[in-house]
Structure formats: C-alpha cells, structure tokens
C-alpha cells in the first residue's frame, strides 16, 4: 500500500532523512518511533507529499507521490492524516470541519456530507458536539473530531503524526481507543508516529525505529520490544520505559 525506497531529504545543507526504506502493507499497522528530532514526523509527512523529498521514491496504492507533476490533491484525498495539534479549523463548527472537504473535494452534496459526518461523529462519540466550535472542546475531543474528519474522506490509509503527544494524560486513552477500534474493526492501513507502547503492543504489526534521520530498526512489534538489536533502540526504550 505505502512503499518508501531510499528516501532522503535535506533542509538546505542539513540532511533530515537518510535513505529511508520501508513499506506498509494493506491492513497493516506500523508504528514509527524514535527520539525527538529523529525525523519521524518528517517521514510521515512525506507519504502524502506535505514535505517534498529530494531523493528516493514513495508510492501509495501504486501512485508515485514523488513523481514530478504528481496529482497530489487527488492522492491526498485518499490518505487521511491526523496531526499532533489537531488542526481543526477554529472558525468552523465541528459539522463544517467534517463537511468542507467532502463537499469541495469529493463533490458530495450537503445532505450526503452531513449524513456521513453524523455517522462518523457518532462513532467517535462526538455527535453531541456537532454544532460546537473547536475552541469549546477539550484536546481529546478535538483529536477525535480530527480523526473523524480524516475518515470522512473514506481514506484507503491513515497517517497519524504524534496524535496523543499534545494531550493531557487523562485524554490519551479516549483517542487511542478510537485508533485501536479503527485498526481492529476496520482493518485500516495505518502509519502512526507515537511513543505509546501500549498502543503499539496492542495493534501494531511492526515498529520502525528511527534515529538521526535514518531507519535503524524495522521489525515485528514483539521482537522490537523484547529484543531490540541496536544500542540506540535499547537506549531509547530504557528511557521511555523507566521514566
């Protein structure tokens, strides 16, 4: 579904990604982790072309994201993305946040868009807040709306960029529950940048560990946690486990 081959990226002279190669098969859940500044958020933003790459190739469902003149808008509408800081549109109600791209990109009628919106908000437990504005919601609620907004496009895969790292601890679970349900019940193809080990153990098929812009380990979840092969991964795990 998602394939990355030798992807490299520079900001000026500074190399942020070095020959990253990995793939996510249909229905697979892959967790990307690593110390801050290791390039994991940048990597995931390359998948839908939010960050351009200078070298290498990324394909999603056979379409080349990195090709010159690639139809990115079309491709992006098929890949849902959830951000660290939610990025709901503050000037629109929850309803309009979900309807906007359905109408403008997918060409759904207002009635169709609203019907889909209501179904998804019910699913993430936010239907009672449909007329509120993002500023009236807690972080966890906003993130659940953001997930529903991405799902409203009926995506073939979902990208999550640290979806719980800006949340207060008591709100992390409500967001992770939605994500677990998405993985288990829908069999959604997911690439998730997160440090939530519980989530990874529950639903991730593989863990990609990054450090200094390179993929250091790419292994089945159980293997990675039980027996990380690199010193850097061991060091990282000991830090997040024993804090």
């Amino acid at each position, binding site marked *: 579904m998602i394939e990355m081959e030798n992807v490299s990226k520079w900001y000026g002279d500074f190399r942020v990604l070095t020959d990253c190669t990995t793939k996510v098969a249909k229905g697979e859940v892959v967790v990307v982790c690593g110390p801050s500044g290791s390039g994991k958020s940048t990597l995931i933003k390359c998948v839908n072309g939010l960050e351009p790459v200078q070298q290498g190739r990324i394909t999603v469902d056979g379409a080349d994201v990195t090709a010159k003149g690639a139809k990115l*808008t079309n491709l*992006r509408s098929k890949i849902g*993305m959830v951000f660290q800081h939610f*990025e709901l*549109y503050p*000037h629109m109600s929850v309803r309009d946040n979900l309807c*906007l791209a359905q109408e*403008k990109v997918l060409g759904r009628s207002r009635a169709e868009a609203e019907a889909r919106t209501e179904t998804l908000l019910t699913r993430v437990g936010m239907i009672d807040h449909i007329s509120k504005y993002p500023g009236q919601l807690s972080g966890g609620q906003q993130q659940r709306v953001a997930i529903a907004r*991405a799902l409203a496009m009926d995506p073939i895969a979902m990208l999550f960029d640290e979806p719980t790292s800006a949340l207060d601890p008591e709100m992390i679970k409500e967001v992770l529950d939605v994500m677990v349900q998405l993985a288990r019940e829908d069999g959604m193809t997911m690439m998730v940048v997160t440090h939530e080990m519980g989530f990874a153990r529950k639903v991730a098929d593989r863990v990609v560990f990054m450090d200094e812009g390179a993929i250091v380990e790419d292994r089945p979840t159980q293997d990675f946690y039980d027996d990380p092969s690199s010193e850097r991964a061991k060091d990282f795990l000991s830090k997040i486990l024993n804090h």
Partner: protein
Amino acid sequence: MGDFDFGVIIQSLPFLWEGLQLSLLLTFLAIIGGLVLGTLLALARLSGIVPLALFAAGYVNLIRAVPLILVIFWFYFLVPLALGRPIGGFYSALIAFVMFEAAYYSEIMRAGIQSVARGQVHAGKATGLGYWQIQRFIVLPQAFRNMIPILVTQGIILFQDTSLVFVVSLRDLMTASSIVARTEGRLVEMYLFAALVYFVICFSGSLFVRRLQTRMAT
C-alpha cells in the same frame, strides 16, 4: 463668545450632510476595493511565484513611498489620458483611494495570512483541498478575523484622508465646511463643527476596535 453664531451650522446642515455622505461613501467603497485588491496583492506576494511576488512588492513599496495627495493627482490626470475621456473627480478619486489603500491593506493581510499557523494549511492539503480552496475557506477567513482591529483602524485613517479630495474639486465634509465657513465668514464655528464630526466618527471607530480587541482576547 458673543460674536459666535452657531446657527449657521443648523442652516447649512443639509449641505454639510451631502458632504459627509460623500466622505462616507468614498471611505466605504475604498475599503471594499482596497481590501479585495490588497488581499490579491498579499496572495501574490506570498505565492512563491517570483514575477508575481516581485510585482506585488514593487507596487506596495512604490505606493507607500508617495503621498496620497500625489496619487489622487496622478489618477485625476492620468486616467483620462489612458481612457481618452474624463471620468470625473469622484471616480478618479475613488480609483486613487482604492489603489493607495490596497498597498496598505496588502501589508495588513500579508501579516494576517502569515499569522495563520502552517498546520492549518497542512490540514487543508491533507484532505485534498487545492491552493485556492485552502485560501478561500481556511486561511483568509482566519487572517481576516485576526486582522479586523487593524483593518478598522486603517479604515479610520482612510476616512480622515478623504478630506484630501478637495484637490480634485469634490465636495466632501471638509470641503463643504470650508465653503460655508468662507461664504458666511464663520471660520471658527464651521471648523470646530467639522472637527467635532470627524472626532465623533473616528472615536466611535476606535472604541469599536477596542471592544473587538477585548472580545477577541477572551
């Protein structure tokens, strides 16, 4: 004080009201036109397309480096030359104000657009929205909202600047007051009254801005 005759104001109220209407109409139309053109200039400047950005930057810097009264003169004399026929004081003044204000509004809107977090653009892109859709539905509404107090302040300045249209023989509030002042020989009364009207309108505008700011801060 006995020499003052404030009755002259009452008598000339219809005449002054016509002047005020012209000032307000000119302000209103110039705000709308300037805002539209200014927003386009701001988008051009931020577009990343070099010739467009250079043109917009050149325009803004040129206009902001000349006095408004000169711009009014330019359009009064140049537009008829370009069109081959006179368009009258009102339209030439209106064009001048729109072109002049656009330069200032474009700088305000540019700051407003930049004040919208990049994540918002990413969120729009991630759902497949195109550049113009993102600007239209996500960035500009927020930029505009963030900038309302400064936009209103600029509108107040613009209202005061409409008093310059006397140079193209238009009868705004200031010019109407001057005419009455001179013909009736009541300079003090008329200029005091004109000042009072400008003050009331501009100060109400300032109060409105202050209220907006406190409302937006909460």
